[in-house]
């Protein structure tokens, strides 16, 4: 007799746990049963922590027995394998860290442990966050729960799929160029990339330090708001982390969008876009108008340069961040006659093709004679992109755009040419360059039943408005949440 408890939201679970109608143990067991049933097909998890999860659930139930348990006490979550979890293997989707067991917790992991959350396991991802489909994982791709021949998106494909398939109640991901929002859209779940510096990056294996941001996947915008509140906040271990106080994001979900000024950037509706994606987002805009929002076309004139700027800045930062994988203190080691040979061979054996490609590009962009032409130029274009948004937000409160030009593509469809894959990041990438918050949420399905996502972008630290707008749309019921067929 299979329980359906794994299909409920975090908000619903919180209420049931506090009323003692269910236990965290029952909730966790329901998730683990589902994991056992679908993992052979999905490959959303690299490691499942069954024994630890049960222990955590039991401990959570003891805490819930007295009042005052924290918000996420007893809630089963899946964690992207880029987060250091003490005592639990953390691979970052790479062979070079296949056996790495961190001796410490990432700050957000420590926060969640303190609250008594339950960790179901570590989810699959493109190696070091480099990819848009989870096909670059050293441990096989994650398949889309809505159609197994298609990608779950990337780089946080495992976390998105795990939520979509109800293997957990919510999950954590990380977004550098769209790695939360794109898989959220492909898998038909909610994904939030907060403002850069809103959430601590300490203990999150770094890809590009000026772009990386940690955020939640959830089944509803309300759930994402609940999670953000637990994740956000100052951290002395991350010097880039903001000291701004963390609001009660759930309280902002008033359902009211009357008078909200929504901007629609004309550069985000391009030729070659899937027709059903465009019509779903335009229908969502009509929905907003019917709820009292004002919708206006605006321009972000430097949109077309974002991918070029990103693939110089992100790769340059990555080449520096990945220099630490040298086979000396942790990770894979391939012996050599001397230390240089050891580094060369270790890294050649441990990194996949895409990672090598990006390290090479980044190293080149930073090298003597090329630094000005490539890296510095890209940084200047980053300023122009940022200014585009600043100007837009003088006239609008929020922007609404598609998340990706298409719905989930087929496994192997975009892997022959790296540039083809890069171009699918067109709608998400500028948001990281500007450091803004971006929320992806379902707004329809295409002719094949594949989920379509829309993106809500706000000025820095406007998560309350962004989440309010997303929640209002969700509550209006224009789009039904379809259970994944798997």
């Amino acid at each position, binding site marked *: 007799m299979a329980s359906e408890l794994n299909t409920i939201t975090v908000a619903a679970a919180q209420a049931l746990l506090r009323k003692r109608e269910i236990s965290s143990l029952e909730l966790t067991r329901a998730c683990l049963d589902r994991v056992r049933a679908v993992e052979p097909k999905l490959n959303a998890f690299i490691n499942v922590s069954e024994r630890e999860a049960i222990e955590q659930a039991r401990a959570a139930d003891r805490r819930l027995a007295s009042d005052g348990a924290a918000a996420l006490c007893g809630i089963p979550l899946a964690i992207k394998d880029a987060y250091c979890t003490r005592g639990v293997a953390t691979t970052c989707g790479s062979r070079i860290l296949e056996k790495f067991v961190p001796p410490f917790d990432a700050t957000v992991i420590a926060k969640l442990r303190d609250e008594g959350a339950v960790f179901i396991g570590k989810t699959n991802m493109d190696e070091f966050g480099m990819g848009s489909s989870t096909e670059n994982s050293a441990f096989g791709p994650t398949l889309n729960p809505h159609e197994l021949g298609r990608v779950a998106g990337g780089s946080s494909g495992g976390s998105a799929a795990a939520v979509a398939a109800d293997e957990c109640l919510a999950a954590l991901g990380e977004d550098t160029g769209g790695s939360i929002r794109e898989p959220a859209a492909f898998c038909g779940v909610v994904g939030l990339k907060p403002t850069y510096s809103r959430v601590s990056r300490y203990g999150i294996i770094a890809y590009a330090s000026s772009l990386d941001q940690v955020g939640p996947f959830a089944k509803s915008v309300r759930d994402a708001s609940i999670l953000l509140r637990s994740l956000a906040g100052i951290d002395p271990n991350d010097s880039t982390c903001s000291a701004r106080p963390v609001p009660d994001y759930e309280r902002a979900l008033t359902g009211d969008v009357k008078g909200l000024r929504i901007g629609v950037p004309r550069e985000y509706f391009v030729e070659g876009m899937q027709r059903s994606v465009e019509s779903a987002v335009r229908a969502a805009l009509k929905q907003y108008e019917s709820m009292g929002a004002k919708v206006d076309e605006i321009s972000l004139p430097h949109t077309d*340069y974002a991918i070029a700027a990103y693939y110089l800045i992100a790769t340059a930062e990555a080449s520096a961040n990945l220099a630490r994988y040298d086979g000396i*203190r942790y990770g894979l080691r391939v012996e*050599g006659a001397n230390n240089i040979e050891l580094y*060369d061979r270790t890294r*050649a054996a441990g990194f996949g093709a895409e990672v090598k490609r990006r390290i090479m590009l980044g190293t*080149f962009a930073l090298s003597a004679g090329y630094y000005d032409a490539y890296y510095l130029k890209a940084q200047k*274009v980053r300023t122009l992109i*940022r200014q585009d948004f600043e100007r837009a937000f003088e006239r609008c409160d929020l922007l609404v755009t598609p998340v990706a030009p298409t719905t989930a593509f087929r496994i192997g469809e975009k892997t022959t040419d790296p540039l083809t894959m890069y171009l699918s990041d067109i709608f998400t990438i500028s948001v990281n360059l500007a450091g803004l918050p971006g929320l992806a949420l379902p707004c329809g399905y295409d002719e094949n039943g594949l989920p379509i996502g829309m993106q809500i972008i706000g000025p820095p630290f406007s998560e309350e408005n962004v989440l309010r707008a997303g929640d209002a749309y969700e509550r209006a019921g224009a789009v039904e949440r379809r259970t994944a067929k798997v």
Partner: protein
Amino acid sequence: MAESRISLEQVRHVARLARLALAPDEQERVRRDMDEILAYVEKLNELDTSAVPPTAQVGEAGTPMRDDVVTCAPRADEMLANAPANERGYFKVPKIID
């Protein structure tokens, strides 16, 4: 055929800088990929950025300082637990100095 933006010799040089041992066929594949991507990123030259300052950081945190006091003292055995080679509390590496 369009001129290459990067030569095989440059690829080898960058691979040395990045400490990556690339096999000869890999080198050519990487050269081709880099060539394609570098051609694409050249579109940035369409923009006049002579008066534009670069953005290195999009956070507002600045550079917070703290007192130079030990606040975290991890145990040596924990730090060595992942070491591919260690001995008597040291990480073992190939001989560097003769």
